[in-house]
Each structure stands twice: as C-alpha cells, then as structure tokens.
C-alpha cells in the first residue's frame, strides 16, 4: 500500500546526494518494513536485511555501478537466491505417465489449481486425468468433477469412499493403464497439527510415487507459512510450490518463507478463480510485487 513500499525507499535513496552508511541503514529499515508487510517470515527478514546491509557497506563497488545501483542489485540478488532467476516447469518425462500430487492447507486452492493445471497441460497437447483423492470434504468429488468437465479432461473419483490412499491408488492405476501423460491427484486439505492426515499424505505418496509433490499455498498466509511448509516437507518431499490468490492485495511473502523451508521452487501462481487464471512464475515480477 502507498507509502509503505520499497519503491519509496528506493526513491529516498535516489534523492540523496551521497549514499553513505546512514543512508544504507535507513534503506534497510524501510526494506524490513516492506518485507514484514508482505508477510515474509520475521527471522528471514532480519537475516536478509542484515546481509543486504553488510554487502552494501562492505563489498567493493562493482565496475560501472554507483553505490546506489549496488544497493539495489544486492537486494535483488539476495531475494532471487531462493526464488531462482526464471520460470522452471514441472518435472515431466515423455513416454510415460507423470503423476503430480497436490497438497496443502485447508482452503488454499488445491482443487481449483488442479482444474487450472489440467487445462494448462491439455493446451500443451498432453493427455491429462484428474483424480479426486479427497474423501473428507463434502462435495469434493463433485467440485473436481465439475472442473474436469469444464476443461474437458477425464475424471476419476469415488464419492462415497473413505480410504483416500486406495482411491488415489486406483485412480492412478486406471489412468496409467490408459496411457495418460499427466495424472493430477487432488488431496484433502491438512495442516501441521493434524498428524493423522500428514501420515495419510505420506501413505498416498508411498503408493502412487508422484513425480512432483506440489504444495499449494494461499498467498494471504502470514507467519505460519514457514512452519507449515516445513512440516509438509518433513512428511513428503515437496518438489514445487504454487501460490494462489495473488489477484488480491496480499504480497505473497509467505511463499518466500515456504521456499526457504522446503528448498522447492515456485512454478506457478494463481491469479483468480477462473480456470485460465494460472500464470508461470516470474521471479523478478514476484519480487517487484513483494516490494511494491
């Protein structure tokens, strides 16, 4: 929001006749504030700002850069260390079925993202199947089935089943047998305190051996992002992250925390409720929005 963004801090930095230690300290304070408002993990903010300050003050100025430009470059460098420099696609091996499993906290947008991914991959000429392995949420199977009809991909669900592991297994087996390129498995929402559900997630993973376990993260999540992502990663190896609801006002700083907690890369972002509102992740764009 106005007056709080790092762009203002940059502007202040630009207006200074010289960029001395005091100017860097002030810039770092503004940076901290911008990152905190963006929901980045507090410890991460402190660590990042310390590194930016240290590098800005101690590093020898690279050739051709003013001290001002150097400060800005250091900031972007530090942030892109985690996020990567460009879009990275989901792991895909042609000639066989690829299984992608969607996991995440309740309400984060897994089912909707499943529909979006199915549409996206189908547009790329792949044969896609959607499996509903959420046996808890009322109407979960109906929801995914309706989305699969909208994007015209095959659907597998067992609305009255109680065993999510078995449903996932049967769904994946069916689509593998029919030569599908990608099998997207939607699972029930769960959080780190629900040990039984984390165990279930582990069991599903063990049975369907996903090529990618995608953590679907709500862009509005606050300081809990780090610990929740860490718990998911301890139960199953999170390979990628999709951050949803970035069409709102949230900056998605929690996503940065979850990247640090899992070592996974953000590959897509959700920018709305409609099935075409999925974008490939663009690190510079994300950082720009984070600091805006």
């Amino acid at each position: 929001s106005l007056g709080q963004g790092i762009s203002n801090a940059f502007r202040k930095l630009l207006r200074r006749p010289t960029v001395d230690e005091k100017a860097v300290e002030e810039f770092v304070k503004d940076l901290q504030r911008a990152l905190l408002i963006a929901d980045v993990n507090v410890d991460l903010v402190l660590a990042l700002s310390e590194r930016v300050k240290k590098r800005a003050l101690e590093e020898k100025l690279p050739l051709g850069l003013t001290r001002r430009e150097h400060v800005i470059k250091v900031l972007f460098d530090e942030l892109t260390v985690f996020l990567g420099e460009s879009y990275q696609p989901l792991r895909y091996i042609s000639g066989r079925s690829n299984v992608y499993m969607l996991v995440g906290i309740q309400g984060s947008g897994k089912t909707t993202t499943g529909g979006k991914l199915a549409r996206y991959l189908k547009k790329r000429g792949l044969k896609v199947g959607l499996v509903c392995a959420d046996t808890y949420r009322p109407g979960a199977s109906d929801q995914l089935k309706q989305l699969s009809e909208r994007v015209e991909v095959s659907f597998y669900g067992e609305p009255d089943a109680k065993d999510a592991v078995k449903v996932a297994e049967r769904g994946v087996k069916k689509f593998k047998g029919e030569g599908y390129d990608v099998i997207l498995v939607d699972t029930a929402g769960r959080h780190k305190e629900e040990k039984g559900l984390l165990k279930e997630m582990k069991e599903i993973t063990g049975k369907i051996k996903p090529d990618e376990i995608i953590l679907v993260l709500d862009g509005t999540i606050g300081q809990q992002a780090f610990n929740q992502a860490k718990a998911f990663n301890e139960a199953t190896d999170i390979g990628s992250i999709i951050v949803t609801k970035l069409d709102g006002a949230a900056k998605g700083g929690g996503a940065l925390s979850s990247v640090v907690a899992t070592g996974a890369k953000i590959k897509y972002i959700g920018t709305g409720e409609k099935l075409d509102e999925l974008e490939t992740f663009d690190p510079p764009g994300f950082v720009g929005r984070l600091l805006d």
Partner: protein
Amino acid sequence: KELTDKNMDEAFWDLQLSLLQSDVALEVAEAITEKVKEKLKGKRVGRFTDLKTLLEEALRESIKEILTPKSSIEILALAEENKGKKEPLVIVFLGVNGTGKTTTIAKIGRMLKKKGYNVVFAASDTFRAGSIEQLEEHGRRTGIRVIRHDYGGDSAAVAYDAIQHAMAKGVDVVLIDTAGRMQTDKNLLEEVNKIVRVSNPKLTIFVGDALAGNDAVEQAKKFNEAVGFDAVILAKVDADSKGGAALSITFATEKPIIAVGTGQKYDDLASFSPEWFLSKILD
C-alpha cells in the same frame, strides 16, 4: 540508574518483533507498541529488568483491552429472542475465498438444530464449482433443508427465496452462505452488498482465516467499509495459529469475534476466549 534511549528503543523493537512473530499485522503491531509507549510515559523505571516487567504488563493490558469485546453478540441468545416472531432470524456469512464460511455455517446450523431450532441453509454461492453440492451434503448430514437454485443464478434471489420459504413454513433461522471473494473486487463486493440489502439480516458475520497475515486487516477493513458486518468468526485456529489475526482484525474494525473454528467437524466451534488468545500472542 538512568535508562538510556537506546535501551528503550531496543526494548520496544523487541516488543514489536514478538508481536509480528505472533502474526499480528505490521500496522497493528506498530499501533500497539505506540499504545504501550503511552502507558509507560511518566512511569519511573529502575534497572533494565524493571522496564521489561513494566513493558510486559503494559502490553498485556493493551492486548486485553483490544480483544475484550465491547458488545456481546450470541447467536443462541438471538435465536431465543426471535423465537415465535413472524420473521426468521437471518444471518449472512461473508469473507474471502476458502476461509471456512460454508463449514462454519454447517457447524452453526447443527448447533441451532440441537437446541431445538428449525433451520434452513440458503445456497447463495451460485458461482463456485461444487458449492451447492457441498452445502447440500452438510444439509443431509445435519438434517437441515437447503434452499438452492442453479449455478449461475442470482445469489440474492436464493437468499430471498430462502427467507420466503422460512416465513411460510415457520422456520426459525435462515443461514445464508455466500461465495468467497477478494476484497479488491469492487463488483463482487457490490454483489454481496446486494445479498445483504435483499435479505436484511439480523447479523452479518465476517469469516476470517486465522492463518492470514497482514491481509487479514485489509480484508476486514474493506469488507466492513463496503458492506459492513456485525461480528467475526475466525476459522482454522487449530492450525496452531499464533493468534495475531484475531488482534489485527479486532483492532482494525472493533467488531467482536464471537466464535472460532477449531477443526473440520461439527463440534469444532468454540466461543472466543480473549484470555486464550492473549496467552498465545504473548507466548
């Protein structure tokens, strides 16, 4: 022994950091820190340890003041007062996508039914895939009738229809489920505004996600400005939420939190305890 300004600044910075780590929104953490500073003005401080104790005391007081509701809203009490009246007790639930509105409605419906009230659900989310089936399944499980139209239909018309049905059949309470929406979407805010105008509810409840960070303040403020709500229910508190969202939302809107969602089952609805949140935030 004189306390230096530097000690004071460090102490206040630590205070603010601890609030931020409890997931309190930045602007709220800053405002509370200012509040604490005000409380400490003119107080005599001895050694550094005295400042720490004074700070914690002032912080505890400030948080307690914010969290203790100024008004008391109790759904069961409202249902009791409304019993026998020609018009049903109408409650609208609104909020951002995925916060727990539909599940919260199901919990409240079941609670009312157990206390002997006659309830209907209004499926005013005519947009999201599976929203009607989700509410219908809750209806089956709780024995509560769902008034619904088709997907793509007018959401306000469903609410109206449900209220007419309630009046005709002597139903006590109408719980209206609305679609999730971003507080940045003016059209969608206008849509839910229309539902509220048409249904003229006794109570409008904002359902927030306990896991939300700084956006919790923005959501609550915008919804309150654009539509207006009377009370807040915070869901997913069981996800080990640090409690900050409760403080942020209450500070920003001054509306009472009347319940918290503590899980996905029908019994997982608890009354809001300022003491419990205070201990979580200060932990």
